[in-house]
């Protein structure tokens, strides 16, 4: 019998019966259950319909009002109220909304609720972001999570694993976003169906944890069930910083079985932009030079970190947003927002003409705070560019990293970030 992948080991440690092999069915008890103001209300109603009296463990449930928050209309206000009331009724202390919280996946890590070897079940497809922390985040719908709330467990098929071996170090303006857009470009939007993407190899050390979050976040855009990074000193340091439970990283056995292997030389990557309407339609940024944009959106659970805001501010310092272009910047959490304020990033962005928002999922999913009109084009650091994703069905979205997005805000069109003229005051 072959050895175990990271995914199999983490699942086995949480499985009833204590074992999990790819292709088998396992019943898994997660460490944390996560819901938001869109998935939560449906789940709470299903929870009631199941006849459940109380959730399995209030201390391990996190509820975040982030999608339609702050509420843009009465229906959204009602959904947030349901979420808030469910938390109060069942003694769930981990309830967050604007002012205290932020975007759920970024927030969850900040709260120290995800660390080496952990498992998060979330009623949101981007729960896979937890993979950055040598943990497994698995997305579900509302009824599944209602069952998880009621019983503390769910059945699942143990995924196969695909090994993504990283070597080298990224060059200028190349980030985690480009790594995952390259993976999706190569294997397609369902290339990792029924699988976990396991990122490892010597190149991992050159990716800061924020960059790993950008990679892990979009594993689902390759169709992956989940994903996981090898743990190392950087992930251990992040866990110590957030207060996540101290645990050794979970490593794969040398003879673990993989469905496929992908090799990526980080040093050979260029910034990549995914053309609408698919995250798999990535091309080098230079191929899109001259593509006009109406709006630039920097934020979301993939790329709203302090690292992204620093990149955007560095690109915009001493420069201006091009006439006729809107730049919307959304720090992912309240803590990141305050850190960006303290570092002067928010002022640099606002001085350049950016509209800086409170943390929210906002326009990423076409909800509010910058949705697109018919015929408009956006470049965004978000994770989906499906038809109509950010607004009208006849609008379009290009996906890119924060350097590329900020450079487009300055140029009014997609350009390689290194090609902008040096700002006047720096010359």
């Amino acid at each position, binding site marked *: 019998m072959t050895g175990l992948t990271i995914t199999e080991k983490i699942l086995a440690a949480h499985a009833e019966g204590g074992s999990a092999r790819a292709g088998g069915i396992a019943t898994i008890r997660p460490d944390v259950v996560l819901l938001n103001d869109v998935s939560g209300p449906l789940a709470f109603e299903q929870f009631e319909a199941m006849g459940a009296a109380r959730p399995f463990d209030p201390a391990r449930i996190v509820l975040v009002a982030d999608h339609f928050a702050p509420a843009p*209309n009465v*229906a959204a206000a009602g959904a947030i109220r349901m979420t808030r009331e469910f938390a109060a009724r069942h003694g769930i202390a981990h309830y967050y909304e604007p002012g205290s919280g932020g975007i759920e996946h970024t927030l969850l890590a900040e709260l120290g609720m995800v660390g080496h070897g952990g498992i998060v079940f979330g009623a949101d497809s981007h729960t896979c972001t937890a993979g950055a922390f040598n943990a497994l985040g698995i997305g*579900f*719908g509302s*009824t599944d999570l209602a069952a998880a709330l009621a019983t503390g467990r769910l059945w699942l098929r143990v995924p196969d694993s695909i090994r993504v071996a990283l070597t080298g170090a990224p060059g200028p303006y190349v980030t985690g976003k480009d790594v995952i857009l390259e993976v999706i470009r190569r294997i397609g*939007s*369902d290339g990792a169906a029924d699988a976990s993407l396991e990122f490892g190899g010597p190149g991992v050390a050159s990716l800061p944890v924020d960059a790993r979050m950008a990679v892990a976040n979009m594993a689902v855009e390759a169709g992956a069930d989940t994903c996981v990074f090898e743990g190392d000193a950087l992930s251990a340091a992040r866990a110590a910083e957030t207060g996540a439970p101290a645990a050794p990283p979970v490593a794969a056995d040398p003879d673990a079985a993989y469905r496929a292997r992908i090799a990526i030389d980080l040093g050979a990557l260029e910034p990549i932009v995914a053309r609408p309407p698919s995250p798999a339609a990535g091309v080098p940024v230079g191929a899109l030079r001259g593509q006009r944009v109406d709006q630039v959106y920097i934020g979301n659970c993939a790329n709203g970190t302090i690292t992204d805001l620093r990149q955007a501010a560095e690109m915009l310092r001493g420069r201006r947003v091009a006439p006729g272009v809107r730049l919307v910047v959304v720090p992912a959490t309240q803590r990141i927002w305050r850190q960006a304020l303290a570092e002067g990033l928010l002022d640099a962005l606002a001085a350049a003409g950016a509209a800086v928002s409170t943390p929210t999922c906002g326009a990423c999913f076409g909800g509010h705070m910058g949705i697109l009109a018919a015929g408009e084009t956006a470049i965004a650091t978000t994770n989906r560019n499906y*038809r109509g994703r950010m607004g009208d069905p006849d609008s379009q979205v290009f996906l890119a990293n924060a350097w590329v997005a900020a450079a487009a805000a300055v140029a009014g069109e997609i350009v390689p970030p290194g090609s902008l003229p040096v700002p006047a005051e720096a010359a």
Partner: protein
Amino acid sequence: MPGIAMQGVVHRYGDEVNTDVILPGRYLALRRPEELRVHCLEGLDPGFVDRVRPGDILAVGRNFGCGSSREHAVVALRAAGVGAIVAVSAARIFYRNAINLGLPVLVCPEAALALRAGEPATIDLEHATIHQGGATWQAQPLGAEVRAILAAGGLVPRVRALLAA
């Protein structure tokens, strides 16, 4: 299992029909079936809700339901009257959501590509077979957990029974 033999008219769509086009994000603060029904497939085919009849069958391409985990997409499809989906492949979360709400999804590339739109087809859930105009296709068999959920009428009654036991 409910609706062991199901019949409906076939509607065809292509690959990568994602949950954003099935139920656009701007409607996600809604959750009542009657509210979501009118927006079903609005991002792809706004005329669908007027053409679909109760029990109709979707024949769809690769990776159906990919993207957002929003269960609202399944609620909308069910409320619009969709009785079953025959797919080349379906995204994991969508598949689970559909089964959990009692909407059968059969994975059968041959049938999904061959079913003729506008004509009736029959599905035998017990045997996971699809029939149209004398042709028969065998879909991938449903797993034990999936069969148990469908047999209970969805995950809510299944968990309700487990909790009451």
